[in-house]
């Protein structure tokens, strides 16, 4: 059985925007793979359509059946990891064996706060006040 692994330096799972995400990918495959691709991406999940955006990626060509490589990605300034009422935006690293089904994923938090940003419901919007301009009709 194939094994794909992503080890993050210092077992970190929380990063500030602009930080470097660094670590090592390890693979032991039952059959040689054409390439391995490491992707840093964010994705949304919740009530509506899901979005996925790959922010950084690195391809390891002809990786053979086993090996390991170090990697380093610079995180962009945003978006932050957050959860509101309608969607969660989460960051992940994914190692994919190409072509094939093998994948390994590690979730990380990218935010200026110690945990993902939590958006609170604002509740009902206040009733707008009617402002009259001009002479008042009687």
């Amino acid at each position, binding site marked *: 059985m194939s094994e794909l692994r992503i080890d993050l330096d210092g077992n970190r799972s929380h990063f500030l925007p602009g930080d470097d995400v660094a670590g090592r990918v390890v693979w032991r495959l039952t059959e040689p793979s054409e390439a391995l691709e490491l992707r840093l991406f964010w994705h949304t*999940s*919740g*009530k*509506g*359509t*899901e979005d996925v955006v790959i922010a950084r990626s690195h391809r390891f060509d002809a990786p053979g059946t086993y090996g390991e490589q170090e990697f380093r990605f610079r995180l962009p300034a945003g978006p932050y990891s957050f*959860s*509101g*009422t*309608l*969607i*969660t935006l*989460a960051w992940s690293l994914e190692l994919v064996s190409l072509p094939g089904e093998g994948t390994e994923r590690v979730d990380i938090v990218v935010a200026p706060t110690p945990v993902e940003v*939590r958006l609170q*419901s604002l509740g009902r919007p206040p009733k707008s006040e009617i402002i009259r301009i001009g002479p008042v009709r009687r």
Partner: protein
Amino acid sequence: MIRPVDNPFASRYVEALPFRCAASNLDDLIDRLVSQQGRGAVVGPHGSGKTTLAEALAQRVGGDIVRIHLGTETRQPLTSTIRSLPRVVEPRHTIVLDGAEQLGPVAWWRTWRQLRSAGTVVITGHKPGRLPVIHECSTDPDLLRELVAELSPEIVETFDLDELFSRHQGNLRLCFRELYDVCATSEG
């Protein structure tokens, strides 16, 4: 407050529900599709599982699957969606055209000219007409209960699903959206 990604009625979990139908199984529908030279329509009202079934059929047929969503909720304008088709459609392609009723007669004719070389074409719509019907989707409260039980057994116990089904006139998509809100606003 529950995180959206953990909400049992988040779209990723709802869309992952497999097609269910008491009257026919997927193998029968594949046979029907094959007997119609790989052309068929799935029809039914809003939220009755047309897209789910079309996707299940395409997955079973295999090939290079091309999905075109023309539903009223699509983000792209119709013309750019149609332009996203492969330049050359070949027998290896399996096309899912979701929301075919959005196309007028001329647009349908142009689209069909583009698609007709595909090995398989499955369209969805609210009414029969464009391609021979392979299945007419319908819903009932028992189906809703069965699907909800798979996503969140607690909701089946605590929520009046018959009333929900009736209020949304059998549109399961709207039922799931309301249940999403129920879970999103519930404590814990």
